[in-house]
């Protein structure tokens, strides 16, 4: 082997190693470049995107009313069977029988966050919640009832539907 080639190789190697060490050395003396966040401490300041898919929730207004009429389209569209709707037939004041939801059950453990239920909901009654801390010790706690106890259906549901179609 040519002696100059040999030393050339050695110096080339040292130069290439130094190039890498410059990059890591640059960051090692710059604590300002640290990207890690301290998670539980910064919980208050967390910026969560408005479209973040945390879990499916049902929106209730101030009167504890929701707009779900129990049509079952979300249940039908869910690919994993994460949604179960238990509905009752009641007779309203006008004497007509009407369908109201008893329980809108949502299995978070089976949900794959495809947002088909929310996209297809005709009355816009379910939406994405921003909660992301879902860890629990008991799997059963991941089965949630979305309509709050004592809630009832909002009456202007018909109009909501029409505005959506328009």
């Amino acid at each position, binding site marked *: 082997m040519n002696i100059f080639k040999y030393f050339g190789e050695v110096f080339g190697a040292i130069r290439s190693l130094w190039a*890498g060490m410059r990059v890591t050395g640059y960051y090692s003396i710059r604590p300002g470049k640290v*990207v890690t966040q301290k998670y539980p401490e910064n919980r208050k300041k967390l910026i969560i995107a408005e479209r973040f898919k945390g879990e499916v929730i049902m929106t209730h207004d101030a009167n504890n009313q929701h707009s779900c009429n129990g049509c079952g389209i979300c249940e039908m569209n869910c690919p994993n069977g994460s949604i179960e709707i238990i509905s009752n037939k009641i007779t309203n004041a006008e004497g007509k029988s009407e369908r109201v939801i008893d329980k809108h059950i949502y299995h978070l453990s089976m949900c794959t966050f495809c947002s088909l239920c929310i996209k297809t909901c005709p009355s816009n009654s379910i939406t994405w919640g921003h909660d992301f801390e879902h860890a629990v010790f008991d799997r059963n706690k991941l089965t949630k009832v979305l309509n709050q106890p004592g809630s009832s259906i909002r009456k202007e549901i018909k109009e909501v539907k029409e505005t959506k179609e328009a």
Partner: protein
Amino acid sequence: MDFNIYDFTSFTTWVHNALTSSMSPGWAMFVELAIVGVVFIAFYAVIGLYLVYAERKVCALIQNRKGPNRVGPFGLLQTIADLFKLLMKELIYIKNADKFLFNLAPFIVIIASFMAIAALPFAKGLHAIDLNIGIFYLFAVSSLGVIGILLAGWSSNSKYSLIGAIRSGAQVVSYELSVGLALLSIVIFSGSMQLSTIVESQANGWWIIKGHIPAIISFLIFLVASTAETNRGPFDLAEAESELTAGFHTEYSGIKFAFFFLAEYMNMFIVAAIAATVFLGGWMPFHIPGLDGMNHVMDYIPPFVWFMGKTAFIIFIMMWFKWTFPRLRIDQLLKLEWKYLLPLNLMNIVLIAFIVLMGWYIK
């Protein structure tokens, strides 16, 4: 009692005299050994644990992370918590392992690194034994550790462990040469193998400055070779995580794994301390001839701080290596030693002998 932070000779003499005056010389010797042992065990534990912490902080900074910050202020107690976790973990026994050797191996590794501390001069007059063949002793002891690694790999009766152990054997045997030859260059310069004499010879300047180019070359070679000898950095083939899962200590758990882990960090400390002693003047302060004012300021810093500071600097460089470079392959590792480091080292030694003969170094 005359305790002087700049010179421990009188302090150690006082301890010796106090002991010999109150008991027979045999007992005094025994008590002295016990004191040194206890001090070194405490030192070993503290240094080992805080090197792990330092490594985690350094690599975190390099990688734009925060590193340990939960246990204690700035995470300072993190490694102690880890130690307690490892102490409480189950020691898993391998069914077809060679029980005796399997249990012996971590102790051999840790004892080998423990023995090397004895010869290190931490400050003036602060060393356990000042052998007149100090460097020779350090070579001999630092290569004992590989026996433990080989035994660990062989006795766990696991294929990954065996490959890791054999790799480690090949690696340490080869790089031992370069480490030895690199240190030999300073032995030529200083004309002594006694560590205290080598340190004293650097009172007017460190060998890396006095010995100029050849000393710098042998310093670089020593850095590379000693990183390889401690199975660290780009040379961690023995435990190559992405190839052999954990190499020779795959089958170890609990405190026995912690022994290997601590020994790795202590070995790093020891080679850094050797480099600091031999090339960077050990506990000698930094002096520039002529600038008396600055030299006096440097003298105020205690020698122990000088020694630890230099060691920490070299440890930082070794960590910097580890977190920057990809790992070598086994054949490249051996090629690097036998085709590059060893010939360069031999040439360098001839050059140094010539320079010393002609007196072309800063005296």
